[in-house]
């Protein structure tokens, strides 16, 4: 078996577990089966094992972390998001509905990533720095937290329980809790994004002799940080309603997607030459 075939096999193994886990979460929510939520969580953990093995295999094979090819970057982001979900759900069985929403987004992204160019690229010496590790790690954790905030926001807008709700919708977490967690996840994600930007700036100073250079990807990461900052201010100072908070969280996430997924591929930048 070629190295890439091993990675693909491990990834599909993980995807199978995530699909099963999503189905179990859905059944736990709809049929109010708490035990099934536990089983779903274990299935997600079972998926993380081959997923982790695929990433580790790739790391050894390429000699560097998941920084270079879009395939490995997306796979690592999905891993971080599912890991965050699992940590959150481990002590909150009531929130199984989050697994039902987040896991399908994750496994579909992972499956799509498997169809991208898997070519192993060397890590250029300018990228070899301890700061790269912190920079990327925190960006992944921010992605996971922002994704969770979008999930709670989507529930707030679409399915949260109301006075007239019945059946499984009536058993969803209360609207105030959904609102609280939307902001809390944004807070976590924004904190990790702060570390991402600061670590990137320190690294840029070592590498290029200046900590800020207004490169397009750099600038958009700042825009994204400011947009989430504006969101947190608005929520605090203007006492946004839960619906407005949910809309603002989803809007901010769109800016994040532009920064993290679209720009590095579409724009010539010091940060993205290796992606293109």
């Amino acid at each position, binding site marked *: 078996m070629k190295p890439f075939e091993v990675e693909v096999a491990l990834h599909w193994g993980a995807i199978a577990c995530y699909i099963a886990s999503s189905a179990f979460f859905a059944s736990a929510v709809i049929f109010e089966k708490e035990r099934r939520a536990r089983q779903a969580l274990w299935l997600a953990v079972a998926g993380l094992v081959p997923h982790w093995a695929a990433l580790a295999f790739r790391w050894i094979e390429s000699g560097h972390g998941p920084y270079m090819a879009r395939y490995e970057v997306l796979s690592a982001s999905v891993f971080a998001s599912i890991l965050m979900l699992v940590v959150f759900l481990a002590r909150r069985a009531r929130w199984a509905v989050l697994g039902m929403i987040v896991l399908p987004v994750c496994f579909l992204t992972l499956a799509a990533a498997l169809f991208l160019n898997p070519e192993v690229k060397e890590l250029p*010496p*300018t990228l070899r720095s301890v700061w790269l590790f912190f920079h990327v790690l925190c960006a992944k954790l921010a992605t996971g937290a922002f994704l969770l905030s979008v999930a709670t926001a989507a529930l707030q807008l679409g399915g949260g329980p109301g006075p007239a709700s019945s059946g499984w919708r009536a058993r969803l977490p209360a609207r105030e809790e959904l609102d609280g967690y939307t902001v*809390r996840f944004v807070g976590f994600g924004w904190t990790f994004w702060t*570390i991402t930007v600061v670590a990137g700036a320190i*690294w840029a*100073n070592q590498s290029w002799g200046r900590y800020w250079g*207004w490169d397009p990807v750099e600038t958009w990461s700042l825009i994204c940080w400011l947009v989430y900052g504006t969101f947190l201010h608005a929520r605090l100072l203007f006492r946004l309603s839960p619906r407005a908070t949910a809309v603002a969280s989803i809007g901010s996430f769109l800016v994040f997607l532009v920064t993290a997924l679209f720009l590095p591929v579409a724009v010539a930048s010091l940060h993205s030459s290796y992606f293109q």
Partner: protein
Amino acid sequence: MGLSAALALYTLVPQVGSAGRLATRRFAAAHPLLAAPLHLLGLDAILQTRWFLALVLACGVTLALVLEDQWTRALRLYRQPLTPLSFRSAPHRTVFVRGVKPEAARARADLRTRGRLALFGTPLFHLGLMLVLLAGLARSAFGREGVVDLIEGETLAARPGVWGREWGGALSTGLTLPADVRFERLDLEPSRSGAVARLGADLATSERGEPRSLRIGLNAPAKLGAIQLSLSELFGPAVLLESRGDGGAGASWTVLRPVGGAQPAFEGEGEYPGGLSVRLRALATPDGRLPQTMELRVLRGNGLAFVGPVHPGEAIEVVPGRRLVVAEVRYWVELRAARDHALWLAYLGGLLLVGGACMMFGLNKIDTAVITSPVEGGEQVEVALRTLRFAELYAGELEALVARERGR
């Protein structure tokens, strides 16, 4: 939001200076109706406009105003002792009667607080923001940078004007090294694929009259006085060609720069006495050693006078009566220098930003109260909980506290 919008425009409209003339012209040709008003509003040079500076300064001023308020409030809340009255408007509260013997029923208040440091998250973060803003303004006014191509064996003198290109803030002074710096040797290690795996440069200088050797590399800068020296990724062979013959002699270095293509290669051009235009091309060597064969093309006027491979030490008669000697081949690197007296302020600000953000969302101040008072048939227990943030997520904690108190 204003800053975000300005910065988004900055990345969408090609900016004079940074995008390059070609990109600016291409944009103007593609959007003739847009280009003129954008130029008029300064949207093609946003970072240099007065309104952008005003926006940044406005942020600074409002930050300074709220900072004082945030610190006094945080300190006041930190010092404020907890009393039963503090829980008057607590979002979580339960009252129940616990059956105890009348002699055991007592009035008491068990008030606790944890995570008080969370109070300082917001002020620390905004202080960090202020410091970063100040450091950025100081850098854009006083900071200075320079780059120069330096060949092995060459010395960069400790005087102004030695850089190939130098730029900086309106109030900055010339970039002068504290002592001469000699580029001793390039340390290059190629990877299996031929790309660069490691790039370093050994420099020799002096400090207080004592010789000092310095090693810089990619991601590994060194400090020389107030100046940070670093390497860019650019390097290549430099060839010393001597032109000898009738009508004058001369020698000069031709620097070969990396060029794209299927195989990593370097190319460079130079003018030599006798009206010779020289073009050199060398392939990158797999072991990182200097190339031992180069392709030489010599033009005299518009005519091709010579084309063929040459080796270090070789002399070639390119036209009758004129010889070109490949006298020496060495490596060159692009050396970068930066001087920013406010760098420490930016780093301190960055540290506070991260610390403040972690304290804001990683900690939370939680106050709990269990207030008992004797009533007929036992004692009344009032359990209350309030938090600095996310009160709506702490109902479970109150329930646990109530369950504990009921079980007593």
